[in-house]
């Protein structure tokens, strides 16, 4: 059975790493800002970074346990790790890189490496050095080098951050294809919500060394539950909130009182609203509406960003308009109000 269990404790400079990841999902995502401890978590699982205490287990095999004094060397963990810069051995040919983890250069191992390179469409590049390959090709070689050792778990550390934006989109699709036949779990760490939304079934949100939200990826995006997770999943608009009654909540920074059909828990302290989710309203004010008092417009290649004045001048509302909606705006002009849809209102603690 596939299951990663990692309970990791480690003292580091500004904060402590206290992470618990327990997942049987095929594709696990860890979302966090740079410096949140996500790479450290991955390195600890692979055994290339020391841990103070905890327990790490992959598919029932204990890799680390502080109370039993188990601490397998990275060589013995059977965990594949793809580094941000791929860490291909610069003096070795592509073929030798892929064979590096296979031990003796027997005919059988050569065949395995050859097959793997063919699968990743890198046949014909066997004798090239890593420095002669493009970023995308390097990534394929790095993954081939890992997959050929048949690891029980694959860890991807910000795999797309070294690529330019065009290649990044392409490699994200390619990565999913390349991993299709792999039956083990894959954990990907990233600061990019888009990458992880596309990639992972289960998502862990990491902030300052702690998991602040986890769950099925789409549900984490739908209900981030706290302000940091909401921000990391891309929410732009936040307001302090005061619960008035079970169905009424006051958004202090925006100067509106929102009425919801669902029950509002008493411990809600703030409200979030994603910039793409507003609906323009012309004429009469409706429920849950904010007056459209335009502060600034930014033109982007494929969208327009409107900034709406609120009670708090430091925190204008962002409204991002794309495609069809943009055409409607051009026809009818700017709306009088922006409506917040009940389902899109994020209630945060």
């Amino acid at each position: 059975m596939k299951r990663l269990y990692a309970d990791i404790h480690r003292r580091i400079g500004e904060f402590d790493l206290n992470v618990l990841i327990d997942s049987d999902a095929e594709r696990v995502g860890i979302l966090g800002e740079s410096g949140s401890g996500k790479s450290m978590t991955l390195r600890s699982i692979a055994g290339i970074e020391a841990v103070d205490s905890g327990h790490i287990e992959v598919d029932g095999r204990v890799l680390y346990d502080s109370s039993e004094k188990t601490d397998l060397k990275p060589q013995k963990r059977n965990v594949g790790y793809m580094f941000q810069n791929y860490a291909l051995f610069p003096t070795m040919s592509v073929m030798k890189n892929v064979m590096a983890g296979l031990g003796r250069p027997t005919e059988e191992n050569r065949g395995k490496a050859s097959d793997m390179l063919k699968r990743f469409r890198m046949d014909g590049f066997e004798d090239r050095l890593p420095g002669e390959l493009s970023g995308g090709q390097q990534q394929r070689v790095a993954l081939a080098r890992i997959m050929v050792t048949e690891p029980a778990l694959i860890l991807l550390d910000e795999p797309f951050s070294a690529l330019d934006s065009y290649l990044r989109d392409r490699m994200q699709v390619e990565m999913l294809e390349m991993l299709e036949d792999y039956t083990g779990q894959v954990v990907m760490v990233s600061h990019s919500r888009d990458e992880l939304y596309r990639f992972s079934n289960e998502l862990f949100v990491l902030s300052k060394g702690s998991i602040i939200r986890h769950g099925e990826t789409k549900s984490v995006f739908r209900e981030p539950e706290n302000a940091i997770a909401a921000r990391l999943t891309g929410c732009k608009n936040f307001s302090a909130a005061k619960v008035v009654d079970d169905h009424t909540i006051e958004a202090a920074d925006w100067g509106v009182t929102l009425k919801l059909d669902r029950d509002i828990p008493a411990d809600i302290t703030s409200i979030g609203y994603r910039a793409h989710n507003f609906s323009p309203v012309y004429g009469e004010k409706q429920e849950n509406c904010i007056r459209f008092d335009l502060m600034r417009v930014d033109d982007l290649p494929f969208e327009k960003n409107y900034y709406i004045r609120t009670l708090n001048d430091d925190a204008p509302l962002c409204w991002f308009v794309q495609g069809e909606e943009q055409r409607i705006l051009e026809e009818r002009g700017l709306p009088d109000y922006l409506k917040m849809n009940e389902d899109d209102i994020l209630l945060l603690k």
Partner: protein
Amino acid sequence: MNGFIELAKTLDWSPLWISLKTGVVATIISFFLGLWAARKVIKKDYRAKSILDGILTLPMVLPPTVAGFFLLLIFSRRRAFGIFLNDTFDIQVVHTWLGCIIAATVIAFPLMYRNARAAFEQIDANLVYAGRTLGMSELSIFWRIVVPTAGPGIASGTILTFARAMGEYGATSMLAGNIPGKTGTVSQRIAMVIQDGDYVTAGFWVIIVLIIAFFAIFLINMITGKHMKNVRKW
């Protein structure tokens, strides 16, 4: 010119062979010892690193005669360790070719160690980590990844070590002495013939040393230069 050819025919070539042999053996010893020491030192924390680094570099900074003095203290057949070597293993260091090798190794070793250390410190640690997660043994990671990647630095360290070991004078003259055909190196021969006022023979040896030295530098530039192609000129 005819004088030089005449000289070359009658010359005792033994200093050149002694120097070359000493240089090769001392370089081989320094090579492995230097890589090993460099690997050990970069693992240490800052404080231990500074202390160890100081000790290992000392022979390069000290006047060779001071190093020679300490070597005599250790290996003299009138002292404990020298007696021990002589009585137990029948090994004599003072006034032997072994003395040449030890003196040259001690003086040249820091060049190997420092170059290897600098090259190791430039290595992306992720390469080593990648080797580990791929299941490669530490030994295999060191010889197949670290050393080749640090190649240019190690190569120039090796050549400098060889040049320094071949030219060693001060410590060698104290520990091994200048016995013609046995411990008489080129450097010692030059000093000796100059004392006799024989500037022609001295000049001859000087030219040979110059050729070897230039060749060594040329070799370093060839090896490191390959990797400098992409450096912008300024």
